[in-house]
């Protein structure tokens, strides 16, 4: 067990690759290069990692930045136990969570976030921020993220703002009656 702990020493690269693997499980992307182990490569286009999940997680504004070492260590411990229970042989050259196949990474995150799991709050929060890196680029000014082609905002189809960084939509509705009103409606538009 001792060598296991050393192997997942939660600093530098091992921490990063573990958290990347976690983020990639939340919003998967395509591998950045051959031999990319963090990203499982089960989707096309950028995922949470390319969207900047690590930058967001490490920002002190999130409040989870100083817990990342612990989270990386813990998820690797869970991965080791998960693999042992299922007789999955883990590649020792990468941290245990990274060694798991995508579907096992996902199954483990489901277990950790199940209501009643004692650590649920942490994993939900970690998942939330990984997702936010993709769906709202919460570590970047939105207009700049869009201009730079942020993969999440682009994939979701967010439109670009006006030159002053504000959105305005001149055309916003169908402009016609589309249903009968409820018969009991007051003149000012409330339920009678």
């Amino acid at each position, binding site marked *: 067990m001792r060598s296991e702990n050393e192997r997942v020493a939660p600093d530098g690269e091992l921490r990063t690759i573990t958290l990347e693997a976690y983020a990639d499980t*939340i919003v998967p992307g395509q591998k950045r290069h051959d031999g990319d182990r963090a990203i499982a490569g089960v989707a096309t286009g950028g995922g949470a990692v390319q969207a900047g999940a690590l930058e967001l997680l490490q920002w002190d504004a999130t409040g989870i930045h100083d817990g990342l070492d612990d989270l990386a260590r813990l998820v690797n411990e869970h991965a080791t136990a998960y693999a042992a229970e299922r007789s999955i042989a883990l590649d020792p050259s990468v941290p245990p969570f990274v060694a798991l196949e995508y579907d096992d990474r996902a199954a483990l995150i489901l277990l950790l976030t199940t209501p009643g799991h004692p650590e649920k709050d942490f994993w939900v929060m970690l998942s*939330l921020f990984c997702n936010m890196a993709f769906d709202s680029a919460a570590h970047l000014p939105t207009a700049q993220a869009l201009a730079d082609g942020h993969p999440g905002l682009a994939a979701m189809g967010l439109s670009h703002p006006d030159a002053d960084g504000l959105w305005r939509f001149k055309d916003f509705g169908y402009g016609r009656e589309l249903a009968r009103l409820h018969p009991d409606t*007051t003149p000012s538009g409330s*339920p009678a």
Partner: protein
Amino acid sequence: MSSTAEHTDVLVIGSGFGGAIAAYHLAAGGAKVTVLERGPWLKSADFEHDYKLGSSYTRAFDFVVGDGMSILGGNCVGGGSVVYFAAMPRAPRFVFDRQGSIGRRMWPGAVSRDTLDPWYDRVEESLSVAKQDWNDVSYAGGLWAAACDHAGRTANPLAVAIDNTKCVNCNWMMAGCRFEAKQSLLVNYLPAALAHGAEIRPLHEVQHISRTSDGDYRVHYNVIHDEDYRLQAGSGVIEAKIVVMAAGAGATPVILQRSEAHLGTMPRAVGRYFSGNGERLNTAIIDEKRAAELFGLDRGDGLAYAANQIGKGPTVASWDKLDGSLPEYSRYSLEQLYFPPGLGTILAQVPDAAGPTWFGREKKEILKKWTSWLTIFSMIEDDNEGVFGPPPATGNAHRISQQMLGRGNLRYDPTKNTLGAWAASDAEVKEILEKDGLAKVMPWTNDLVGAYTVHPLSSCRMGDDPLTSALDDRNELRDHPGIFVTDGSAVPGALTVNPAMTIAALAERAVPGIVQAAQRKGISVTYGAPAPDGSRSGRKKVLPLLPTLTRT
């Protein structure tokens, strides 16, 4: 001691609907009013369109995760009104006869739709609430209306507090209205209160209340750092003859719980009977082709819908189930809504998923269809099952992020009644939107942060029965004369529609009683101010009601 402390006549805690309305009337009537607000004081130019943490969204919000229920509320001068969608319907008549979990009418005998209507009128006048036209309805609202019609239902453009001549349909209402189209309290009651001498202190978070030797109240606050709300920049006390608590239904009971050691036993209902207004969200992923074929919808550029980003919060609701002859827990409204990415996207689930529903491969695929999402908001009748545990060290939550995110002590364990009502409304949303292949629909998951509410209510409610209500029928805290509660925590139960209109009307109704209590404590104050813009027709209707609201 008390001679060196700061004094005010009326100390208002929180500057949302309950706080702003009380502050305005009491200041206009001549009292010295001080408002302590835990959030920052943001101006129009501060309301950026930006999802970056630390920008307008996050600093104006408070998101508290509890056990089984999370609350999203405003955290700034103006409170929820700054971040709300300004849908302002009155509560339907049957709501006031609800029995809920206590088996007898939960509202005070003195309050009904008829007795509240004149107060609703006042609010409509003060906030310029008006019914929208079909021309004001967003693409999302229009699509929802068309779907309701196709499924044999009715649908209504909502009454809103929005000046549509200024609205640009940016859909950033939750970050504050940059264009001053939304009639938040920053453009009516609060400036009017200031004009009458009220003082508003932002970044002042009240922790507890104690008593002075001469029977007044001493309010203890921390000053909050203006960027990192986890930090405190000092503390202080201020003494007042009258305290108006309006910190919102997620915070008022917590302040009272923390005050119990100083003020003595709190009524049993403080911190109990919390309701999330029965909220529930469903995300539909619209089949664009079917939307065009079924309803002939066309944006003019070949697109049928794909307009999730465009609009202004809820514009259309379906009220077919707001039928007073139906049994309790089977009545609800279904409202089209907009929820921006970041705050809610993760809770949307993939219809027909083979793997995980809220994250992963398949979730990414539906994120790519985000512009074709349509969000439907149900407001059912829940069972007031929320209970607040012991208060955290400060405020109403243990703050995690620099802004916005915290962990609170609310526990919400939905009963069969609530679960059944959610299931029925989910089924109806599915029936309407999946008809003829229009969409695929799934409710938001409750597994991550519990149920989710932007409409916290009832944690310190008014009523006639001391066992099940913390306030009497004039909003005064039982056994603690001079402390009034005017925010959403006073509302006895879920309303089946958006609550701000009812919170505001009840706050208007509470003011004559607060004025009378202030007069009895020697404060020179009168009742009778017009609407914040000087309009007087609303006042005419309520003046005759005053004898019913004063105490002998």
